[in-house]
């Protein structure tokens, strides 16, 4: 089962390698990983999407907690959250396809951020389902490149 785990860490040298090394060294999966500073410049937040059975997830959470620069570990499974991903897509845009791309951009509330003679670069944000659907719709146009940030998440309410 997939889990989104939010990890607050000391914003210090080497902390990313401690976390990523923990995953590779123990054979855990990383599907995506985002990291950036929080409101407090001394603390960073990592959002990790991983998968595994309950026992593996329990180990992942405990092993993360055991790292000394790790301050807090939250598993968002079962928690009401808002999650988003940003995607940049380069897609073919010539002939009839051009109109279809523009329509899709409109429907998905995406934006065209760069235009070249036969290619648009589109910026899109959304939850997992929306991103997947958008990319699926664009595929017949001919996608040249996809760049994704990986998922970030925050719990709803206070």
């Amino acid at each position, binding site marked *: 089962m997939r889990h989104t785990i939010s990890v607050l860490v000391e914003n210090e*040298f*080497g902390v990313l*390698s*401690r976390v990523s*090394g923990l995953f590779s060294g123990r054979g855990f999966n990383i599907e995506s990983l985002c990291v950036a500073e929080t409101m407090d410049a001394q603390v960073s937040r990592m959002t990790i999407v991983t998968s595994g059975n309950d*026992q593996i997830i329990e*180990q992942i959470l405990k092993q993360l907690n*055991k790292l*000394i620069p790790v*301050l807090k570990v939250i598993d968002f499974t079962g928690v009401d959250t808002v999650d988003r991903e940003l995607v940049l897509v380069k897609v073919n845009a010539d002939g009839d396809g051009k109109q279809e791309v523009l329509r899709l951009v409109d429907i998905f509330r995406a934006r065209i951020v760069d235009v070249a003679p036969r290619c648009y670069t589109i910026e899109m944000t959304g939850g997992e389902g929306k991103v997947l659907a958008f990319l699926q719709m664009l595929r017949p146009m001919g996608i040249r490149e996809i760049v994704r940030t990986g998922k970030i998440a925050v719990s709803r309410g206070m």
Partner: protein
Amino acid sequence: MQMTGAEIFVKALADLGVDVVFGYPGGATINIYDALFKNVKVRHMLCRHEQGAVHMADGYARASGRTGVCLVTSGPGATNTVTGLATAYMDSIPIVVFTGQVPTLLIGNDAFQEADIVGISRPCTKHNYLVKETKDLARIIKESFYIASTGRPGPVLVDMPKDVLIASARYELPKEASLRGYRPTYEGHQRQVESAVRLLLSRERPVVYAGGGIILSNASGELAELSGALSLPVTTTLMGMGAFPGSDPLSLGMLGMHGTYAANMAISHSDVILAVGARFDDRVTGKVSEFAPHAKIIHVDIDPTSIQKNVRVDIPIVGDVKDVLRKMIKLVKGKKEATAFRGKTAAWRGQIASWAKTHPLTYKPSKGKIKPQYVVEQIHKLTKGKAIIATEVGQNQMWAAQFYNYEQPRTFLSSGGLGTMGYGLPAAIGAQVAMPGRLVVDIAGDGSIQMNIQELATAVQYRVPVKVVILNNGSLGMVRQWQELFFDGNYSQTCLPRIPDFVKLAEAYGAKGFRATKPEEVPEVLRKGFAADGPVLIDVITDPGEMVYPMVPAGAGLTEMLLV
């Protein structure tokens, strides 16, 4: 007061009460060596290889309970410590390893004697540091000792670039280390402890499975008290040897791959297991799906990651085993439930006693050939069970665990988790330095001893009177045993045709050498060797065909033991 980084380093160690550093100098640490030269409080022992230095710090820590310290230079000096770090990490031993590093500006440039030791050692240390500024050095040293020795102990590495050691800063050693991301749980949850005791008392066939955590937490007294209050049979892991007196009638000895018949049968037929400071290692459980099929499991450990890792546990308790055992004792001692429990479990103890009686640890004595088990028994007899025993890894280690009855904690020093050949001699030296008045014996094999034999020079130079007994079977015995049992006796690359002559080698190093070739010579040669001054190496020519039994083949259940 302004001091150089090198001076801060030496002063901080002195202020933290470090009495000895095991190390090896080099270009990146030469400033520290100059500062050490001018300091009288911190003694430095020059090893012959950095791996030896780390194992000495490790042996020092295991024997004394104090944190061991090691100092090496950058590059190869640092990389040579990796096996020692991994050894200490697997066995949760508190040591701090300080490495020199190339100057900050050269880091990443493939400079001379540069290695990314912080990156390399990350998975085999509890934590590590790269010191970037001289002003941080004292604080980091304080934190490194704090992290190494608290919670589940372990090795910490501190990498110190040369410019950081040369530059000056004010010396300020914090009184307390405080890390917001590191707060070990010492107190076991009272209600969990109560449920654990209720579960335990509701069952009929209990076993305590005690590991190295008992020794690390200095909880042997509590273990004995709880076991006594409830007449609980106790089996220990390899790391737990000495945590419970071997001569106690409730002691079942070691469990697992080379455990006793009684211990493995008891675990397999038990209906409740109290696991304390142990981690269900594969050498203990055998085939996990067949491990203790009838038992409810209570698991007490200070490290939450050890719980629910290899086996499903019914009642987990995170905390210091000493605290949890004390709470359990309080709940049962003198209570009528305890008396009732002792009564209803008597039949179970009878069953265990009959297993112990039908299949005790044994071997077939021989008139012509020296049996290694006999040698270990003779060492036990001669030292009255009071020596500190270090071991190498392999058959020598298993026989040392099986045939020397450990009564006290911190008397059996062995690389249990990593299984590091070459551990025993340097660990014995470190232990002897920590415990000058004790007799320290390294029970070795002719293969393992050669992996760090150079440390004999260290022992001779500093007159560290360790006694090394080589069970010399002219082969890499444990691998040979597997080849004998599972590979049609194809002794592929396991024959060491008794090279070198260990007696001459000992003499070349300036140590004393003795040899026994016949069974009847063994007691006298051991007596002479142990009575001699200074480091001694005793070469005992043993039967190469002898095997370690009982044996649970890899991947089999614990009841499928091969017996003598």
